[in-house]
Structures are given as structure tokens and as C-alpha cells.
């Protein structure tokens, strides 16, 4: 069985940062595994600027931020294994990894889980109606547009005004689509003020607060929703051909769900808690990486 001192699950901003710090702290045996074929986690599909102001003193795009981390990683002996799913982690400090042509078991001394978040799906809400095509999570829509150059739709309604929802509102506008509105159940937008000004105001996209979606209409493709004004209880039909849901992020800890807190296990980045800003995810991951690396050097 293969043996590594430090196994890191996830090569997003957090996993990459943790690996770099662990290396600097003296750990020379690090395996960094990510299911995706490209490193960086959510960063490669975030082609907008707004990353790295604290860490690098300039505003970078997601792909540029990833490049910086990868350039630093190239100078280390950290082994990066892409296209590699970590299937399970057990109490006896072993993990099962799976990639094309190879399923293997790896023993480790320390594990850093840097598996990020998943998006909450519409199925989690008590929204009635049909389940037609044309409903995407914000991350899905972002991947389609930015990485695959596919068109998710034209008349777009966005549910949820976190940073992802607002950034996608702007993205659709830039693509020449009509963003009907961003609906938000809270009193005001959920994300950062900076994103509200840059992504919503600047593009004249209406933000409808205290509103939510109650029912979805449409047979093949979505044709509209019934939305509710939460304060008055009034309802209105909003026609759309695309619904993008930005309902929030859930830390992805499926791998360690059945493990009790163990001294050999640490969480880094968004799987520890949701970080709005990549620099804060990265700096938390650096601390975790440094501590683990120092203990293994």
C-alpha cells in the first residue's frame, strides 16, 4: 500500500495553499488529489476580477489567481494527482483513491480536507410545480458559459442574491441575455456591497427583496414562475426561459461524515466554513497547512 505523510483532498485555492505552507514548514511527502482534470477548484470558472487583493496586492481573475498558486507549487515536490476522486477515508488513516485505470489505497499520517462547497439545489426548497429543463445552479450556469461556451438561456430569472447570484446576473448581461431580476427573500442583497454595485447597479438589474419563488411552470422547458412578495403575500407570474438558483453553499464534508474529530484530520477553506473571499480561504488553509507540515517535518 502506498504511504504518504500528508494527504490533501481538493486542489482548489485552499488545498493548493495548504500544500504550499506544509511544504514550507518542512513536510516533504505530500499528495494533493482533486477529482477535476484542472486544478483550482471553483477559480478557473471565475473569469471575473476580484481575487487576491490581500494576498497579492492586486486584483486578479480566478484563473490568474490559480496560476500564481501553481507557479509556486511547481517549485516544490508536492505531488498533484488530478482526475482523482477520494472515495473514502477510514479511521485507520487510509484513503481510497480512484482515477482512470487505477483504484488504490493510500495510508497517511495527516489529512487535510479542502473539498470546498456544493451548491444547495432547488429540490431542497418547498417549491411546487413541474421540473422542466432550463433550471441551473449558479455554478452550473457559470461553468456552461465560461468553460464550455454553451448558452443556458435568454430570459433569465435569478433566485438568491449572494455573491454567486449577483456575479451570474452580470455574466448573463455581458452575454447579451436579459436578466429579468434577482429575487431575494431577505431585506437586502445577500452578498458583498462591492458585488452589488459592480454587478447589479452598474447593469441596471433589478433586485427584488422580500420575494421568493413558490411554483415552477412549464412542460418541456421552464416557461415561468409564480413568485411571492413575502410581506404582502401577493403573488405574480414572471415569465422566463431560465431559472438560475444561487441558494447558498453547503460545506462538502461527505468524506468525513462518519469520522469523529481526530487529531490527524483538519479542514481547510470552504469545507471548513464558507469564505466570501478567496484570500481568507487561502490564509486559513495556510495556517492549517503550516501546522500539519511542521508536525510532519
Amino acid at each position, binding site marked *: 500500500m502506498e504511504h504518504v505523510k500528508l494527504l490533501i483532498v481538493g486542489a482548489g485555492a485552499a488545498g493548493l495553499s495548504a500544500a504550499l505552507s506544509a511544504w514550507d514548514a518542512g513536510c516533504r511527502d505530500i499528495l494533493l488529489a482533486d477529482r477535476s482534470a484542472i486544478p483550482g477548484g471553483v477559480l478557473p470558472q471565475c473569469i471575473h476580477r476580484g481575487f487576491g487583493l490581500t494576498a497579492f496586492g492586486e486584483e486578479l481573475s480566478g484563473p490568474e489567481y490559480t496560476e500564481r498558486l501553481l507557479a509556486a507549487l511547481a517549485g516544490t515536490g508536492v505531488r498533484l494527482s488530478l482526475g482523482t476522486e477520494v472515495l473514502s477515508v477510514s479511521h485507520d488513516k487510509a484513503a481510497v483513491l480512484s482515477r482512470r485505470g487505477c483504484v488504490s489505497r493510500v495510508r497517511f499520517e495527516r489529512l487535510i480536507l479542502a473539498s470546498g462547497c456544493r451548491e444547495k439545489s432547488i429540490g431542497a426548497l418547498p417549491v411546487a410545480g413541474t421540473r422542466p429543463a432550463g433550471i441551473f445552479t449558479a455554478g*452550473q450556469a457559470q461553468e456552461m458559459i465560461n468553460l*464550455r461556451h454553451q448558452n443556458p438561456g435568454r430570459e433569465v430569472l435569478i433566485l438568491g442574491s449572494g455573491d454567486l447570484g449577483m456575479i451570474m446576473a452580470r455574466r448573463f448581461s455581458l452575454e447579451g441575455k436579459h436578466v429579468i431580476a434577482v429575487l431575494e427573500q431577505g431585506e437586502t442583497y445577500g452578498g458583498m456591497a462591492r458585488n452589488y454595485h459592480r454587478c447589479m447597479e452598474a447593469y441596471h438589474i433589478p433586485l427584488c427583496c422580500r420575494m421568493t419563488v413558490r411554483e415552477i411552470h412549464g412542460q418541456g422547458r421552464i416557461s415561468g414562475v409564480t413568485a411571492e412578495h413575502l410581506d404582502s403575500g401577493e403573488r405574480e407570474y414572471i415569465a422566463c426561459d431560465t431559472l438560475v438558483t444561487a441558494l447558498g453553499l453547503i460545506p462538502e464534508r461527505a468524506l468525513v461524515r462518519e469520522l469523529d474529530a481526530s487529531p490527524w484530520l483538519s479542514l481547510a477553506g470552504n469545507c471548513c466554513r464558507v469564505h466570501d473571499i478567496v484570500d481568507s480561504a487561502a490564509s486559513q488553509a495556510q495556517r492549517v497547512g503550516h501546522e500539519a507540515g511542521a508536525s510532519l517535518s
Partner: protein
Amino acid sequence: MERFDAAVIGGGLLGCFAARELSRRKLDIALLEAREDVCTGISRANTAVVYPGYDHEPGTLKAEMTVRANAAFDRLCKELDVPFSRCGSLMLSFGPRADAVLRNKLQNGEANGVPGLRLLDAERVYAMEPGLAPGLRHALFSPTAGTVNPWQLGIAACENAVHNGVQLRLNTKVEALHRDAEGYLLETDRGSIRTRAVINCAGLAAHWVQELLFPPSVRIVPTAGDYLVLDKNSVGKPTHILEYEPEEKVKGLTVVPTVEGSLLLGPFERDNTLDYATTEGGLFWVREQASRLLPGLDLDGTIRSFAAVRPNPEQMDGRSIHSFCIEHPAERFWSLIGIKTPGLTCARELGQYVAAALARELHAEENKAFDPIRRAIPKAHVLSFDERRKLAAAEADYGEIICCCEDVTRAEVLEAIRRGACTVDGVKRRVGTGMGCCQGARCEQKIAALLSEALRMPESAVTKDGKGTERIYNGAC
């Protein structure tokens, strides 16, 4: 023109089983399905329970068939390599009316020959299901009740039918019927077909198909039901099927721990509709009932809701029909109309029944080469580490994970496509992709790309669930 001995109309559970059972005879058989895939109708949206048989009046065909079908279910699922969980069921009473219902069902069940039925007191029930709400009086425990994935069972029957020589014709809707001395002429949207005999299993449209040739004899009054699905990792899941029998005279909630590990809750029954849209009231009712029955159940684990449509058969004068409605309007023409619960449980028995009746009329010989065995698509995630390592080494695609929630590999997805999946949902029905907590947000894109590659079609033509549900916007709506 194509000629067959028998044509089965409708590729739902019943049609697939009718075709499979017919293929035990030396006959040329066609299975005609209007849509792009089998099991997209009632057979994919129901409660998934394999009933023990205490619900029906002693002496009826339904009672007799259900008990027989239930007893044979392990063997059937073994032949067809479909997971079946005989988890047992508890019918729950919290008051005097329900107590009486339970006693009545026990009596029925005993008369029907349902094995192992027992009326349990509250203490025993809480030991079996500690999460149940306080106030329980009794439960009717039925150890033979179980659950199966309905569409996987139907797809397996279809694969086995094809393996035994049945010709599957998809995208083939029967639009007109004619009868002459030779037999029947079926006009479909893909040309005409001649056949000596017909089995009509067109589900919600079965009465309509029969009326293409015969005067109306049965009416269908559709009702709908709303369901919720909770993720397999939800806290507070019960381990038995629970059937709540309320004090009010309404249908109570059914809770099913599915073979996949998720939890199915429902249905909220509503009237007169053919609409597959869920209702707010229905979803609210299911949530409310669930938290009343299982206070510790974490409803935040909800991942999906769906609606089902139930075809209720009635006489033309409005009297409802309680027995299975098996019609025989003319020689060599059989219809299964308005087959609702327990149609899943009895799918094989019903298929056998009409196949046997038709074989007699056709004087068909036995097909000695009939092979009852079908093999499922090998699943990586059920294997031991060593088996999985060997499999991935032998077949690289078994190492590549496509759906990370449900741990489904590229090899499984490709095999699903090879076996007939042609939509994102078709892959889902065969190998379970997108059934987990992210509901396909992370794998849909990859599956669409694999479909496009394997079926040599542009990705813009890949649909979620058949025509009109293209994933990529094409401006058509």
C-alpha cells in the same frame, strides 16, 4: 410491412413484463413505446412498495395475485439482477379508528395467506423504530413487505425481453387500430404494423388505445399525488416502510426507505388531474405529516419533490372498479386498463396472466430457449476494495468517477447508454447518476458530453428528459 404474432403497446412496467412473459413462447413479438425510452410513465413515479397483500378482499384476483407476487419477488429480482429490499412494513395506529382498520387488515391478510403478519403493541414498535412520535397504540407488522426500484425493474424486464427475441420499437406511438380476418393493423407515427394479437398496456392512455377500435367500456379518472425525497444521509430515517393510518378518514402518509438509501415520503392525494406538477399544499402536507410522525427526521435533507398520476378505472356509469381491470374486448386483444397499486408488485403476474391467455388463443408453443436471466450493469460502488481495484485495472473507465454523490463511474454511464439510455434522465434511471444531494448539478454536464459523444449527436441536442427538454437553450420556446 412488418408482421408480428403479437404487439405489446406501451413500454411501462406492465408492457415490459407482458413482452417478457410472452417471449416464453415461440412468437414474433414487438414492444411498441411512444417515447424515446421505456419506463417514463407511471412506472417511474410511484410509491415503490412491494405489498404483502392484506389490503384486498379475500378471494379477489388482486389479493391472490399480490400474495403470490410478493412470495416470488426475491426470485424474480434475482433472475433480473435488481436490488430488492424486504425491509418489512409497519402500519401505524394512534387511535381507535386506526386500531379497527389494523384488525380488519390483519383478518384480511390472514384469510389471503399473507405470512408472518402480527399486531404489535407500542413497546415493540418503538424498539423497532425509536424515532416514531409518542402516542402510538399498535402497529400491524408485515415482514414480507419490501421495496424495489420500479423503473429499474421495468428496464430489467425489457432488457430480458429483448434478450429473448422481443423487438423493441421506441419513438413509436400507436395512433390507429384496424381489425380484419388476419388480425390487427396498427398505424403508428413510424409506419404500419401487422399483428395477429395485441396486448394493450398503454398506462394512462390504455382506455384511449382500446377505444381506437372498440366502444368505451371503462373510464379513467386520474388523480395525482405529491412526494418528497430525502437524501440517503438524512438524520432520523426509519428502517421499515411506515404506513400511517390516521384517525380522520383520509389516506395517511407512507414512508419508504428505498433500495438506494434515500427516503420517499408521500403521497398527498389530489383530485382529477393529469398534471405532473406538484402543489404547494401537497408538499406542505407531506412535510407536516412527516414531522408529526417522525419528529427527529431532518427535513433539511430534502433533495427533490415529484408528482405522480394515478389512473382510477370506473364503469361508464361512474361506479368505481376495485379489481384489476383486465379487458378482453375481442379475440386476441387484451388490455390492462387503469392498473394502479399494486401494479408494480404484480407486474410480472399481470404480464404472465395476459401472456398465458393470449398464448392459448394463438396456440403458441413453448420457447425452449427462453432465458430468464438478465445481468445488471456492474456497479463499482457495491464492490469490495480488491474487486474494485481489479475492475479499474482491467477497464480504465471503472476508475473515473462521473457522479460523485452516488459514486457512479464512466464505465457505468457508457454501459447505460449502450443499453438504451439516450437522455440525461435515461442514464439516471439506469445507473442512479444525479440522484444524490446535488441532484445532478455536478455531473449533468459530463453526462451530456458522454451522451453526445457516444450517440454522435451535438451536445445542443442532448435532452434532460426527451423532446423539448434540451439542456442547452436553442431558442425554440
